[in-house]
């Protein structure tokens, strides 16, 4: 018998290929992490230079942003970003959630079959198209009923809101679809209507996913650049806390738009104005990074475990 034993040994080449593949996959996996670290490194490197010239406290508490006069207070830019984020959230969070409820609970298979791809298309429209749509169509229409400037935060907010609806609806819908059907059955069995089943069982059970979708959509709105640069203008403006709504009618400048403006202008590469780009970028990065961490925390905090 032993003479006929099959050859089960490794021929060497196979184990070499195994190691080669493993290494290749690992390199790909670490590439994105390395890139992220490199970006953070560059941001920090130039931001440190900037903060050598401008005290961090002045940057983080200042309420005037006029780089041409060497005044670098970041709050007007944060105000602009906040107002756009708030405005787009007011549109995208409710509409996105209602869309998700419709898709997950109400829509028939056939409707869902064409509505979902249609929403994905909305997510695939280049933001520059949204930006010009806001500037060329939305602003003139709204201008008939509101005293709007050519560049204003309102139409930019609306378009950013529309842009992030698919993000909210798609992630929320995934969360709702994964709520076990047995819970819906239990609710129907107790004499609940479809509306009650959706609002009292499905939405609470999917809350973790819904909240994550909200936070991710908000960080997307915070980071949105093209729409606001085109439609909201380039006017750094400090929020007037007695009339925050009034800010929507005027031109604002977000952190992202300010970075575009500095980058696209002919400022000298080693000037403080140029370096301010990295300080604003770092601020933006810290905010969106914190929101992503918060999103992780929320989704683990509210995640329900089903058997």
């Amino acid at each position: 018998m032993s003479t006929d034993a099959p050859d089960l040994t490794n021929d060497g080449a196979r184990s070499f290929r195994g190691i080669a593949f493993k290494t290749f996959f690992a390199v790909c996996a670490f590439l994105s992490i390395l890139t992220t670290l490199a970006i953070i490194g560059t941001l920090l490197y130039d931001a440190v230079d900037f903060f050598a010239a401008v005290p961090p406290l002045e940057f983080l508490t200042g309420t005037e942003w006029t780089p041409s006069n060497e005044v670098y207070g970041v709050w007007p830019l944060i105000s602009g970003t906040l107002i756009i984020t708030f405005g787009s959230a007011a549109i995208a969070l409710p509409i996105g959630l209602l869309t998700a409820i419709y898709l997950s609970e109400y829509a028939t298979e056939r409707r869902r079959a064409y509505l979902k791809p249609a929403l994905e298309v909305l997510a695939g429209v280049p933001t520059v198209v949204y930006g010009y749509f806001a500037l060329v169509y939305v602003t003139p229409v709204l201008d008939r009923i509101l005293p709007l400037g050519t560049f204003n935060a309102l139409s930019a907010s609306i378009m950013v809101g529309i842009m992030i609806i698919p993000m909210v609806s798609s992630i929320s819908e995934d969360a709702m679809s994964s709520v076990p059907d047995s819970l819906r059955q239990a609710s129907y069995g107790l004499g609940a209507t479809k509306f009650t089943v959706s609002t009292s069982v499905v939405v609470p059970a999917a809350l973790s996913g819904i909240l994550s979708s909200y936070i991710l959509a908000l960080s997307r709105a915070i980071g949105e650049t093209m729409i606001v640069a085109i439609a909201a203008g380039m006017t750094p403006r400090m929020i007037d806390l007695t009339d925050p709504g009034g800010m929507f009618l005027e031109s604002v400048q977000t952190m992202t738009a300010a970075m575009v403006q500095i980058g696209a202008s002919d400022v000298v590469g080693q000037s403080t104005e140029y370096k301010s780009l990295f300080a604003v970028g770092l601020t933006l990065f810290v905010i969106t990074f914190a929101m992503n961490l918060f999103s992780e925390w929320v989704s683990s905090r509210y995640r329900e475990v089903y058997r």
Partner: protein
Amino acid sequence: MTQRTTTQTPTDRTDDRPTNEQATDAEPATDRSGSVADPVIESRDLDVYYGDDQALQNISFEIPEQQVTALIGPSGCGKSTFLRSINRMNDLIDVARVEGDLFFRGKNVYDDDVDPVALRRKIGMVFQKPNPFPKSIYDNVAYGLRVQGEDDGDLDEQVHTALERAALLDEVEGQLDTSGLELSGGQQQRLCIARAIAPDPEVILMDEPASALDPVATSKIEDLVEELAEEYTVVIVTHNMQQAARISDKTAVFLTGGRLVEFDDTDKIFENPEHDRVEDYITGKFG
């Protein structure tokens, strides 16, 4: 008596209820003619289809009040489908279609003017796998009351009563605000029973309520089912023939093809069934 249209299955309608039942206090006060209560549910020539497949064929029988009626039969025989057609849970399946009549206290539940939501408020349901909501024990039990707008009374009292009737109160007293998902499987199922009986329905449908539970938890559920029959009409689907023999008063045997082969007193079914096929099934020769 004139309503009886059960052609395949002459049912024995005398008063000699099985001896293992808690006898007299379970008898409904409105018992007429000294025989048996009015049927709560009456199925007449009921057919159910899933798309082109016929799941139930020509089902006709009557379910008596305040008794336990067991539906038994091999997998795929349509017993769960029948249970779900009583409270129109089959409506939730797009391809399901029902023909024939199913009366609940004389009203055809498939009439156009029947709202399944209103129907389900009269007919509670307990499912095969315990499915408590990811909410507190209290909110689970209160859910039906709130949904049905019956929470204006003393909600605490209603919740306590339901938990007590479901034999769960002793085990969860003082921790009603913990999640229902933290209970053991058997406790979860009793929580689901408490949730079903809290709004005080007339009928409780149970779809293999103990099949996912261990023997100890199963026996608690069985005891509970017998107690519930003192106040409610219970219809229970089970795979377990010993369970049907232990807890039910009446048994309906469904066999392959979605046909009701025999419906009679449980004792009769298990000791001396009319049909050989039923005897073969019960003695384990097939199925």
